[in-house]
């Protein structure tokens, strides 16, 4: 006898779960289906299968430039975030020092700041110190908001890895740097990959900060936003959305599979 749920309860909870999955995935499925509808608006009736919307967006230079800009910013964001987050995570997980709680609070604070307020602050700062609005000011904003997510991925992993292997390395004569490169880094790698993927997806999809400090560098979300007012552009946008969703889902699933496989390797 299960003390937690009755048989009817199990059935009820299963149906609840299935219903929620339908709610979560139905809009996406509809989006995918209608990206192949030959009709000029994204609506019924079905007028036959077409790849036209995918072809038109591939032939749209403004859109492709926006995609390239977003990819560039996202790639830079994930590299810079990891480069900053790994040392910070090691300090938080391995060192004892005064003011640690304050530093931790500072590093995690971007999690709770309303994006719109952060975006205007950044715009004011850029004006105050004379940074031209461009992809690099967007990069700065994206790194700030991605950093806490990277830390929340890296620090628990460092805690799980523990110190014993590192101490063994040092007992065997490895210096701190060699220990880091040969012991810590390989064990930390899956979390590093996860944080890079998370930073990338946060940046690639971000529209609030970009709309305040991107200047002439139109990112993909900004482009999509600007096109929403034109109904004729909608089928193309849907096609792009489907492709981006597919690719980011693949990236997230891939990094998760990698993370799990290596999680088993920790003793």
């Amino acid at each position, binding site marked *: 006898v299960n003390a937690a749920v009755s048989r009817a309860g199990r059935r009820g909870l299963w149906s609840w*779960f299935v219903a929620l999955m339908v709610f979560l995935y139905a809009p996406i499925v509809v989006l995918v289906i209608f990206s192949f509808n030959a009709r000029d608006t*994204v*609506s019924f009736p079905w007028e036959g299968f077409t790849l036209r919307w995918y072809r038109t967006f591939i032939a749209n230079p403004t859109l492709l430039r926006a995609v390239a800009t977003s990819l560039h910013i996202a790639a830079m964001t994930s590299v810079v975030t990891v480069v900053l987050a790994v040392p910070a995570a090691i*300090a938080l997980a391995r060192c004892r020092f005064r003011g640690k709680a304050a530093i931790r609070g*500072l590093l995690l604070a971007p999690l709770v700041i*309303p*994006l719109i307020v952060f975006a205007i*602050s950044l715009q004011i700062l850029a004006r105050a110190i004379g940074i031209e609005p461009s992809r690099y000011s967007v990069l700065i904003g994206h790194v700030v908001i991605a950093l806490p997510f990277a830390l929340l991925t890296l620090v628990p992993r460092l805690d799980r890895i523990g110190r014993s292997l590192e101490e063994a390395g040092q007992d065997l004569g490895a210096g701190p740097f060699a220990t880091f490169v040969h012991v810590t880094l390989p064990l930390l790698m899956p979390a590093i990959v996860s944080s890079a993927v998370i930073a990338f997806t946060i940046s690639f*999809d971000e529209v609030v900060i970009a709309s305040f400090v991107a200047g002439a560098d139109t990112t993909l979300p900004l482009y999509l936003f600007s096109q929403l007012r034109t109904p004729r552009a909608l089928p193309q946008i849907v096609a792009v959305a489907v492709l981006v969703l597919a690719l980011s889902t693949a990236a997230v699933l891939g990094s998760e599979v990698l993370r799990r496989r290596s999680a088993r390797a920790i003793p």
Partner: protein
Amino acid sequence: VIDTVPGDGDTVARMTVPAPGRANVRMRRRRFGADTRRAAILLSLPSGGLLLFFVVPVVLVAMHSVGALTLLPSDRFLTLERWRDFFGSIYLGTFVKSLRISLTVSILCVALAYPTAYFLAVVAGRRRYNLLLLTLAPFLTGFLLRILAWRVLLNPQGVITSALREFGPLAADDSIPWLFNSQFAVHLVLAYVWVPFVCLPIFVVLEGLDAHQLEAASDLGAGRWRAFWLITFPQSLPGVIAGFLFVFIPTIGEYITPLLVGGPNSFMFGNAIQGAYLQGFDWQFGSVLGVFLIAVVGVITAVFGRYLSVGTVAE
């Protein structure tokens, strides 16, 4: 503020120093000094970056809000006047509306997520992690794109209305007014976006509960409902609060969703801030609104901050 990072390694450090002998104390002190130096090196760049690009900008906004910095000649110098203006203005009403929408959405999300998390933790068995990933995957991919999907579904020329015209009761030029550019749409889409994320902290807490307690309760004659309300639910409250905050904090400042599916009647506080900056170029008043929002979120975080740690246990 937020105690999000569990186990900071202090315990391990303490374990390597067995007895409080004098040599050990000295060793510990030396170790503490070396740690501080190491931490200073490791943290200099990330903390410095955040100071410059996060703390300083927020301080600048605060200075704008009281006129210590000004943009336009019409901006007033060193005054709390705009703050007074704000507390007597319709923007306070917009804030209350935002608060109401966020609150409703957060409660809705928790209500939808709790049975899901319970299912994952108690019923799903060995498939739980795969099903959890299935639940979370939409959240991890494309915030803007999922709002956009709803715009495609809900707008008067969109999939739902056209389907009702084709196959349902709607006449060719009829539409359903509350479906799009409405508060209904804002609630629906926000709940849709945030539900997966709320499942995570509740799942983590429920999964960590000791199943033996329920067996004991059952042995002592408690029915399943009684055992749930007396044992499981109270212990899962930290996860519920964390999930609630995960939605509440980011949605108070929301402005994308009202813009895309809500229409002017459903504009939230974030839209007011954006309007002040981009349309009115009134940075001073926009800054008042912004600082007010930060203050509200800051208070919530300070009061409930300890609950925000729960979601991170899942790595």
